[in-house]
């Protein structure tokens, strides 16, 4: 719009946003006929995620006879296996953390997409940043650089812990990788001359990517569907359960970590293909 007196622009923007707001809020207070978004969600009864929670997607609607309280019985001839923490072994999906089971098992394809998003945006940043003069970091104080050198290994450790326990505790490959990247960011911020050769990080990153896709294709070969979990799941809840999920999440952790650090380095010192 014309960049003259700026407040008219603001005034109109306010009106537009207000009208959009009224429209977007109206469905929530809608009293019309037909299915509408309920103000209070009681249970997951009519949602897909119920079966994700109960880990009984394969025999979901076909075989459930009737259900009371926490248990349900299936029709005869079909094994009903209610999932109990620390007891059921080899459930439909290994991890106790239901979110990770969705992220890496039920909807693994999303995660694959997600990895490519991160990979491509960092690639975009690298392409944009080629041949960009490095930003000089002025007068970094000695305390900071020393403190940083002390803190970084601990940060790395926390990061590795997070993505190793992805299937039990909240968080997984992505938060773990991000924590690792913050370690490197701290190094950049505090010591001006710190730099590392990006080629090694990139090889690590792409290797991890290739292995993940290879595992997925292996799933296709062994279990006849992409990203199928062909390794045994082990007992629900303990550290060595759902092996494939752990492997993939750690690979994702490494990949995200190296990616983000390379991305941050590019933003700081520009991209040099050393």
């Amino acid at each position: 719009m014309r960049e003259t007196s700026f407040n008219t622009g603001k005034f109109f923007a306010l009106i537009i946003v207000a009208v959009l707001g009224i429209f977007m809020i109206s469905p929530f207070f809608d009293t019309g006929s037909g299915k509408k978004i309920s103000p209070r969600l009681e249970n997951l009864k009519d949602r897909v995620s119920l079966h994700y929670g109960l880990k009984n997607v394969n025999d979901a609607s076909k075989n459930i006879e009737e259900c009371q309280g926490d248990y349900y019985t299936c029709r005869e001839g079909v094994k009903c296996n209610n999932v109990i923490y620390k007891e059921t072994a080899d459930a439909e999906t290994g991890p106790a953390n239901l979110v990770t089971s969705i992220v890496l098992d039920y909807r693994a394809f999303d995660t694959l997409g997600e990895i490519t998003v991160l990979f491509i945006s960092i690639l975009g940043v690298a392409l944009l940043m080629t041949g960009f003069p490095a930003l000089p970091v002025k007068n970094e104080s000695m305390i900071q650089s020393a403190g940083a050198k002390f803190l970084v290994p601990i940060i790395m450790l926390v990061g590795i812990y997070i993505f190793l326990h992805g299937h039990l505790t909240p968080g997984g490959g992505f938060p773990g990788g991000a924590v690792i990247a913050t370690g490197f960011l701290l190094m950049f911020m505090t010591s001006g001359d710190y730099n590392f050769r990006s080629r090694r990080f990139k090889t690590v990153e792409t290797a991890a990517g290739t292995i993940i896709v290879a595992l997925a294709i292996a799933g296709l070969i062994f279990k006849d569907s992409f990203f199928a979990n062909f390794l045994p799941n082990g007992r629900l809840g303990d550290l060595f359960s759902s092996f494939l999920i752990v492997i993939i999440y750690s690979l994702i952790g490494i990949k995200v970590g190296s990616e983000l650090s390379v991305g941050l380095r590019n933003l700081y010192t520009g991209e040099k293909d050393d």
Partner: protein
Amino acid sequence: MILYSFLFALLTALLSLFIRREYNYIRWILYSAVLASLTFLIYTMNGLWGYSESFKLLSVGSVDFSLNFKVTPLSWLFSFFTTGLSLSISLFSIVKNRHEESERSIGFFWLILSVCNIAIFLSADLLTLFIFWEAMTFVSFFVISPGWTKSFKAVNYYFILSILGAFAMLVGIFFLYSKSATFNIESNIAQLFVLYELNSPQAIFITLMFVLGFFTKSALMPFHIWPAEAHSEAPDDFSSYLSGIMIKYGLYGSILFLVPLFVFISKFSQTQPMSNHIPLFSHILAWVGAITSVVATFLAVKSNDMKRLAAWSTVGNIGYAATSIFILSSMGVAGGIFHIINHAIFKTAIFLSLAAVKYRTHEREMHRLGGLAYKMPVTFLTFLLGIIAAAGIPPLNGYASKWMIYQSLLSGRFPFLATMIFLSSTGAFMYLFRALHSVFLGQLPSKFDDVKEVPFLMQIPMYILMLLMVIIGIFPGTVLLPVNSILKSMNMEEIKVTYTTMYSMLSSVDAPIVFLVFAGSFAFAFILYLIGKPRRHVELLDNYTAGQDPKEFGLTREMYHFALKFYEPFEHMFDKYPRTNTKEFYDSFERKINETGSFIKKFYSSSPRSAVYIFTLSIVLIIIYGWLVW
């Protein structure tokens, strides 16, 4: 057999592209050979009416595209005489294009154009007509301005108008198609008639669409500006093709579609308003034709460039033909078709002679030419005969068709149309004589002293055309008998005509007698001439200047040639009436589009924030629209 000949012609066109520049006369000989074979092919098809050929293409959705051709008397006559004429023109252009610098593309596209031309005439249903109609419009763009910057501005008018016309026709065709679900012409006419009966506004809308399509192509009233631009800027030999043949498609289309429709209405309809017992719509169209001819005449009187003058005279003649067609009497339609054919012949003759003049003198403005008759007798003779025919003076073919048009107008009780046609035909004589005088008679400028006649190959078409004009002038039956078969095929009653005399309700004309009378009186005058004392030849500049020798007071031959403001006083007569100029209207329209374009572009190059601004604004507008509608 028709389609294979088309493919053969297109193939030769493609192959001829690779002939190198120095042998370009071979390319043009190839073209005339192809045209000759096409003419012969069409000639052999005479008589076998109803021979049809179809070639299924593709059916996307419910529309199945197929090219089907049918030989009817109307299509045979039109395709035969147009290909014949283009054959004679191509003879002319063999020599002319020896030194033309972009003649490779002209030749290539010209041959494609003549193939489309035949295909248009032979097409049996509306879709094939439209396909070749649009192809002809696109291809003619490249021939009129083959890479010459000045002619690009001129060709824009032609191009835009004929595209809009073609698209209007497209809409018309498909409105009908959605109702009658077929493309062939008879059922569509019946369907349109039914629509008229239901008196639905859609019927008038569809007919208007077709009228728009035909009138833009034939440069009638509201769209009459483009011939003056396109014909004068086109390559010289092509402008004879352009005004001889290509301007006739609109009239052909109206004879094919509109005339049978109006005849149908005038015979059976109860609901339609009738004026002078023909449908009001067709009466209006006749009036449009008459007004076009008058306006064209007045504008022709003003033009100083010879090709522009000839172009305006084409528009005028098209006006006559349209008027006579749209009064729907069988004499009128026959007169119209006859006039179209005659006009093609004498207009090609005129344009060919102008092209010959331009070939020799490379000059287009009339006041810089003059006295060429003494140097180029054959061209002068063709031009003279062309003018006599164009003005409708008896011995030649122009008179025969004009006479029929007058008979139809008078017997059909259209007094004012007849006067307008008379006015424009006398006006025609005025500006045609101006062209004759300024180009061929009067003083010969000194720089053209060494101009010699055009090479013999270029003279052949001139002789052919002269011969044609005289033959049709004396034996009008040669053309009128096929025209009669056309009338029979359109189930209108035939006109009484024998090979020599033409009968009409009011009177009859025996063409050979008219010619004999003229020859006899000429002999009488010649005898008288011999009786008188022999005369002495005197040099051109030595004439009556009240005793002084013109050379003394520095008078050169160019200055002595009165041609620049030939009818200037006549033009001043109209000064005080305000005249709207359609050209300004089109130019202002184009300027407005450019302004809106730059306004839109300003948005596109403005900052990203305004992009987002308008993004959200339009979402909000959609929401508000949604609220209003629901």
